[in-house]
């Protein structure tokens, strides 16, 4: 399994360097506006950029139809899918830790953490887990352009729903729904306290990844290369 991740690192090192340096620099854009963003937004942004690293590797392999070669290595399809998830967490998590750590050396970034480091870290973990769980099966099934179309499609879908809500005057209904969801989470947070809340979130992300892993297995197992 680790051979597969090692292979991706070696064969994809050029892409990793490119995406990695972007992930390193980009968060500083958040510091441009005079009023500093909440730490959660900063961590979310770093998380998103870092998950693009492993996803970029998978997409590249699909683009050059090198997946057939990977499958000719002495590995089962299960190993390959699992290595995508472990690799995803390892590369994205690792790079995120590095970016956040380096960020601390910059004063302005350090201040962001003052109002709730734990919340930020939890948010980082969640964004990592969510992106990996959603993007990997998508890329395995539809490959590189599938991923791009998917992302664009999501945005378009979001806009359409927004316009629909606007047109049908249901905007405040949507608002109310979002508000109640946020309140529910807030009250649940009070109810079980920060530790309990963090535990349920982590559990939730873990279950989501497990389900996504299962889905990817089924997709990949029946795919003709």
């Amino acid at each position, binding site marked *: 399994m680790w*051979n597969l991740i*090692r*292979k991706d690192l*070696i*064969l*994809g*090192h*050029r*892409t990793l360097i490119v995406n990695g340096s972007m992930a390193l620099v980009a968060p500083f854009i958040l510091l441009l506006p005079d009023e500093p963003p909440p730490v959660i937004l900063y961590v979310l942004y770093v998380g998103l950029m870092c998950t693009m690293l492993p996803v970029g590797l998978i997409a*590249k*392999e699909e683009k*050059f*139809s*090198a997946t*057939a*070669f990977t*499958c*000719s*290595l*002495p*590995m*089962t*399809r299960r*190993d390959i899918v699992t290595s995508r998830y472990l690799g995803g967490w390892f590369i994205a998590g690792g790079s995120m830790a590095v970016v956040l750590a380096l960020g601390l050396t910059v004063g302005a970034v350090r201040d962001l953490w003052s109002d709730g480091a734990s919340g930020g870290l939890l948010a980082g973990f969640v964004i990592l887990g969510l992106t990996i769980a959603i993007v990997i099966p998508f890329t395995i099934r539809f490959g590189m352009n599938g991923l791009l179309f998917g992302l664009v499609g999501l945005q378009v879908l979001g806009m359409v729903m927004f316009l629909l809500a606007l047109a049908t005057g249901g905007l405040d209904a949507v608002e109310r729904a979002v508000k109640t969801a946020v309140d529910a989470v807030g009250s649940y947070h009070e109810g079980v306290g920060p530790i309990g809340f963090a535990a349920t979130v982590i559990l939730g992300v873990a279950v989501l990844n497990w389900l996504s892993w299962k889905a990817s297995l089924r997709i990949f*197992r*029946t795919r*003709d*290369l």
Partner: protein
Amino acid sequence: MEDNVLEIRGVRKRYPGFAMRDVDLVVPTGHVTGLIGPNGAGKTTLVKLVMNLITREAGEIDVFGLDNLLHEAAVKARIGFVYDEPSFPHDVNARDLGRAIGPFYKGWSSERYRRLLGEFGVPERKRFKALSKGMQMKLALAIALAHDADLLLMDEPTAGLDLEFRRDLLEHLAAILEDERKSVLFSTHVTSDLERFADFITLIRDGEIVFSLPTSDLRDAWGVVRGAADVLDHLDAPDVRGVRTGPNGVEALVANASLARRRCGPEVVIDRPSLDDVLVLMTRGDSYVESH
């Protein structure tokens, strides 16, 4: 040690416009089996099924006596695989590939890999995209040959390569075959390479195995009867494997040349068939025949 390195039983696979029904094939250990057949006959499908790159509707495949689904990793660890369009990420070079792939194989030797790259003339640091198609193929061959595989599974490994390289490759395979535990399954359109070198020839057409025979049988027992159209009347029907009619006479492929000789007498031309002849004459439909 298995006497058959590869056994395919009752395999079924369908694509739009192509169907493989209940294919059985046995590839003996310690020998070179040449796989020939027109484009779209199912050569690539067979190779991909063995490597489990594509799914199958039915059938079992044993490699080295192991079921290639239950023991997928163990089987693939002992196969050197060359696919007719080698596909690696475009920005990697031979050195990266060696470092990335070596650990997967117990028998991998980076010294042998470098020697092969040198012999095939593959630059170690040039990016894959910058290599010519022939050079990309040589890189794929170097990788397949570098881990001392027990079965070399090659789908059209010499397309577009010149005769000198093809002969060098056959030399490499012959050296490997001195160890009778090694085997080669080699699909190619350039059948002249297989003529003397392959031990067995398997002809596949429209998803069906037409025959699997020792090459020497095809070469020494079979014949191509060339003459006027009436020559067919002399021939023994079950013995005729294929006929092509052309503007200046007919060509009939027979499985027993000496019998045909006795039937047709000394003045009829009976040549030793080339593998191209066998393939062309056994493919139905005499579309265009050259007027030459």
